[in-house]
């Protein structure tokens, strides 16, 4: 009886599973195979190039570092905002949530181009700085790591904020009261109760942000310079310019494995913490 019901419920997943198979697994396997296929059949050349090519290693490292710093900045900026939102009444919180989501209505491409307009040599920011007399020459914002971070943080911030808020809203307000009556000042109650309990939601947001950052393409390409070439650019280069599809596939595989490794580490680090089991999204 129970098993039968489970099967019926599983049937609801079928469309999603079919979609994943056709649109996701199929190309994924294709990429995996591609990384082992050369001009004359099976080869390990592409894969071994991951080790031998200095470029590949540097770019892979840089990609992870970029994803890491972007995530940290998103968390540092997003956490206080999320805290503010979590303390609002539900109605007002819903309103602010719409505002946080508002940027999603505008394409990433457009938002990135907007940064080019704002940060360019003749852009709004430089004009303002010069007008204020803070600088004589226009500052080089565009095509730097700074611009890449700015663009990515702006895009990813809502993705960090929303799960963090959800996690915080789930924290039972009675626990804070309990901490207070047991002798904790508001600040100590925050650090010893609220903060640890909010970590699961924030970690979920951070993890999603990190993984999305690894695959970012448009923003780093348009806002970054040569020094911020990341793995997506490198793959693109192999596909479109050098036509080395095998190496492109190997790079993609490496990125995938590294991402899975991150998930595994996150899981290992949190599996014994009950509050992480739900990812902070519900309880």
């Amino acid at each position, binding site marked *: 009886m129970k098993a039968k019901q489970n099967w019926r419920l599983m049937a609801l997943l079928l469309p999603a599973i079919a979609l994943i198979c056709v649109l996701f697994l199929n190309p994924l396997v294709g990429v995996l195979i591609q990384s082992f296929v050369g001009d004359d059949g099976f080869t390990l050349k592409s894969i071994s190039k991951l080790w031998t090519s200095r470029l590949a290693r540097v770019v892979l490292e840089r990609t992870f570092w970029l994803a890491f710093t972007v995530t940290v900045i998103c968390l540092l900026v997003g956490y206080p905002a999320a805290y503010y939102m979590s303390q609002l009444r539900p109605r007002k919180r819903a309103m602010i949530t719409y505002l946080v989501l508002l940027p999603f209505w505008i394409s990433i491409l457009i938002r990135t181009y907007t940064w080019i307009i704002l940060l360019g040599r003749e852009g709004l920011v430089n004009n303002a700085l010069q007008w204020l007399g803070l600088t004589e020459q226009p500052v080089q914002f565009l095509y730097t790591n700074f611009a890449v971070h700015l663009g990515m943080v702006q895009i990813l911030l809502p993705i960090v904020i929303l799960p963090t808020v959800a996690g915080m809203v789930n924290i*039972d307000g*009675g*626990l804070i*009261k*309990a*901490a*207070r*009556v*047991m*002798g*904790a*000042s508001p600040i*100590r*109650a925050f650090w*010893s*109760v609220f903060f*640890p*309990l909010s970590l699961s939601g924030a970690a979920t947001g951070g993890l999603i942000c990190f993984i999305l950052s690894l695959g970012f393409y448009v923003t780093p390409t348009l806002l970054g310079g040569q020094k911020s070439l990341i793995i997506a650019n490198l793959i693109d280069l192999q596909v479109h310019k050098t036509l080395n599809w095998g190496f492109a596939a190997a790079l993609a595989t490496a990125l995938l494995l590294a991402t899975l490794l991150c998930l595994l580490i996150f899981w290992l680090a949190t599996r014994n*913490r*009950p*509050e992480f089991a739900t990812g902070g999204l519900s309880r």
Partner: protein
Amino acid sequence: MKDTGATIEFRNVRKEFGAFTALDNFCLEVGAGEFMTLLGPSGSGKTTALNALAGFIDVGQGDILIDGISIRQTPTEKRNIGMVFQSYSLFPHRNVLANVSFPLQMRKMHKAEVRQRSMKALEMVQLAELAQRMPHELSGGQKQRVAIARALVFEPRVLLMDEPLGALDLKLRESLQLELKALQKQIGSTVIFVTHDQGEALTLSDRIAVMDQGEIQQICTPQELYDQPASTFIANFIGSNNILRVGGADQHSIQVEGLGRIPLKPGTEKPYAVGLRPELIRRTESDGVPAMVEQTIFSGEAIRYIARTEDGTEILLVEPRHPGEAPLAAGQSIALGFDFENLIFLPK
């Protein structure tokens, strides 16, 4: 008993939520080491009173004093109050020991002492073996006991408990009641205890304050409350009772529905109603109030009868059960006997 308990006093405390008055001119004095129970129906302001004492809400008017000193300006964390919440409120990210240690850590106590005192508190509630468990790995009763240990661990002079046993089944509740009472005696804290359960209130309390609609209706010992309820509301709320309307009266007697004419002591005012405990009614052979059994209810150690008198009044009576003896059947005629001094004259 140690003299750790503090005195508590609510002076004309008033608390409004918008247009709604949750506490109305609330006055309550609790002696050092006393076990005071707030008893009242849902929404009568019991939790509000505790929250005001703990400092979770600001009171609009009036004052609250601990040991004669006003605490209105004292922040919650400086009030030194132990509190057990109805919803347990254990910290889910801390294990049992760390939960119990929390109040001591906040008091910047030495690590070794924190550990030793926390373990002692856990032993008091017989949970020492579960010190390393996480809260979600505990049963409801175990959680409740951790919450109690956590409230007691710093031997607070004031202990507030908001329906601490509410979520437990009857058996566990009864055994925890006794434990709780013993622990309180041992530590000597002044306790304000909130409950819906009048049986629990009668068992545990030194005194009971009955609340209704933000006001205290009566404060007295459990026995007085049972024997001399001050109003129909209380007579109904505590135990079961027959509340009988009063009809015409003259100088010496009143007409009580169901019972007939009852003599009135000289100088007494005509009551609003008369109460008669069902266990104080006995069946007599003759010269009682004639009635007919309508329903027989078996409740373990006792049998309850709902009888109807000739004027149509429903009367509840309770008899201890004698094994082997068949209870009366519905439709049987009986006579009800009672003593005049057992009648409760209710002024309102």
